[in-house]
């Protein structure tokens, strides 16, 4: 008797990278032009996500129209800076560097000792401050670089790295961003290094999250994209602790993925019964 195959057990995170890149480049171009701008601003961390976002924007708008920003803190790894510079050089985009150390130091000075996580949040928000300010000065849109894995797991700082005008990567898991990066010719050194939010020395995403992206992406795909139940995830071979932890984390981080809640006290409330697409606002 042949084995019974179940469609939910076929976890498939492969993407057609060439076609996906075409869709995303058109998305970036359409949204930037529709906003009446011609340029995009991207914070280059030296990591794979921002390298992919910058590459897509350069394809969409032309390299001259994409301003890459390096936003190092004094604790940032030196390799991150050189990797970011490599990306800008390969793409032929302008590169600016703003040291966020004085901004963060100034913040610590007025708010007192903040601890590692709050300091990391302050750094992410200092970067946001610089990116949005440059976008206003340059009449550009800020490109988001948060991927679907980060958004689902809430691995990002609200009003920090989660802030952007448009985000071409938000519907791609980290392992899919890697496929896109390979197709787009992102340097191997960047593609193969351990993902890091660069919030303290030696930090890695996978240590923070307690799981490798290639494993958690397969689970997230099963739970989210394939709408699998807890039992189906267990049947697919994932450990109960991981399944429960991820399900709980995805649910508890919903607040990071939606605008603030507005209390309804009128007949027509923004976001609830005043519903307009951003692209066709009245």
């Amino acid at each position: 008797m042949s084995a019974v195959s179940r469609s939910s057990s076929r976890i498939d995170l492969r993407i057609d990278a060439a076609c996906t890149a075409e869709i995303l480049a058109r998305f970036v171009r359409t949204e930037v032009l529709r906003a009446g701008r011609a340029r995009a601003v991207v914070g280059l961390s030296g990591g794979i996500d921002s390298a992919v976002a910058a590459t897509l924007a350069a394809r969409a708008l032309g390299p001259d129209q994409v301003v890459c920003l390096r936003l190092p803190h004094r604790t940032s790894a030196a390799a991150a800076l050189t990797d970011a510079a490599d990306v800008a050089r390969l793409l032929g985009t302008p590169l600016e560097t703003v040291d966020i150390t004085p901004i963060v130091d100034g913040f610590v000075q007025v708010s007192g000792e903040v601890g590692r996580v709050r300091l990391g949040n302050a750094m992410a928000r200092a970067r946001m401050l610089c990116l949005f300010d440059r976008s206003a000065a340059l009449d550009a849109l800020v490109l988001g670089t948060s991927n679907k894995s980060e958004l689902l797991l809430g691995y990002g700082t609200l009003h920090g790295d989660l802030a952007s005008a448009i985000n071409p990567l938000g519907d791609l898991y980290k392992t899919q961003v890697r496929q896109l990066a390979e197709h787009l010719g992102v340097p191997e050194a960047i593609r193969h290094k351990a993902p890091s939010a660069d919030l303290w020395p030696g930090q890695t995403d996978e240590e923070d999250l307690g799981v490798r992206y290639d494993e958690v992406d397969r689970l997230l795909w099963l739970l989210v994209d394939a709408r699998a139940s807890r039992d189906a995830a267990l049947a697919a071979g994932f450990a109960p602790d991981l399944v429960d932890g991820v399900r709980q984390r995805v649910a508890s981080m919903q607040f990071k993925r939606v605008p603030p809640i507005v209390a309804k006290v009128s007949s027509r409330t923004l976001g609830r019964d005043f519903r307009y697409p951003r692209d066709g606002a009245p």
Partner: protein
Amino acid sequence: MHTRTVALAQIAPKLGDVRANLARHLEWIERARAAGADLAVFPELSLTGYDLQDLVPEVAIPVDGEVLGRLTAASRGIDIVAGFVEEDPGHKFYNAAAYLAGGTVAHVHRKLHLPTYGLFQEGREFSVGETLRAFPTAHGSTGLLLCEDLWHSPTTWLLAQQGADLVVVAANAPSRGAHPDHGPTSASVWRDLLKVTARFHTVYLVCVNRVGCEDGLSFDGGSTVVDPTGVIVAELPLLDEALECVELPADLLRTARTASPLLRDARIELVHREVARLRRIRFDLPDEPEAER
């Protein structure tokens, strides 16, 4: 039917901007006319864009109003299919498509199946159409469907049984990413559906899908013409605007229907009896009197 040349106008409408879209239509109709087309087909909601939400009442137009009037006036010497939000005299809003010919509105189709699941919320925004009719044109009997309508197989069957030799499908099929085995996700599914539907009902199918991007929603394009034997005879590019003229030879319809007399062999009485039985069960209706059986 007469052999006809159809122009597939695969455009990216501008969301919520009826004036800009009307100007675009008039321009592309002239291009189609210059290319020798008998009929120019635009996508679903081609005058308004798709993701309208609360813009629906703001972009809605009556069939006898100025916007459709200008488009209708352009339909001398070339027939036109265009999508719009129709407002009826009772202020109901429909996702509709009009067939314009010889300076008149030959037919209006109101979408029958409003997808309201997943990313779609059409049932919230639109009233549902209640009739499905093939209609005569100078080139042959024709039927119109809008996107999701095609996914319900009785629609094409009914049009074919009413005599349609060409079924025009105006679509706004959103992309759900691209997979290495089959490219953009919705394009491949649509291709399969169109081939099977044309073959099952021995009709020409002309499906025009839009391109462009609205609030992150991308549309695949890949507009397709399938002949009555289920063979794809034209496929427009993915993701980009394109205009292409395709000839639909009348003799192929005859050959297809001779080789596969599926329309002839349809059992309308059987379908009627079984649908009537389903209807009685579904709505808990009394049995029909003996005389009516």
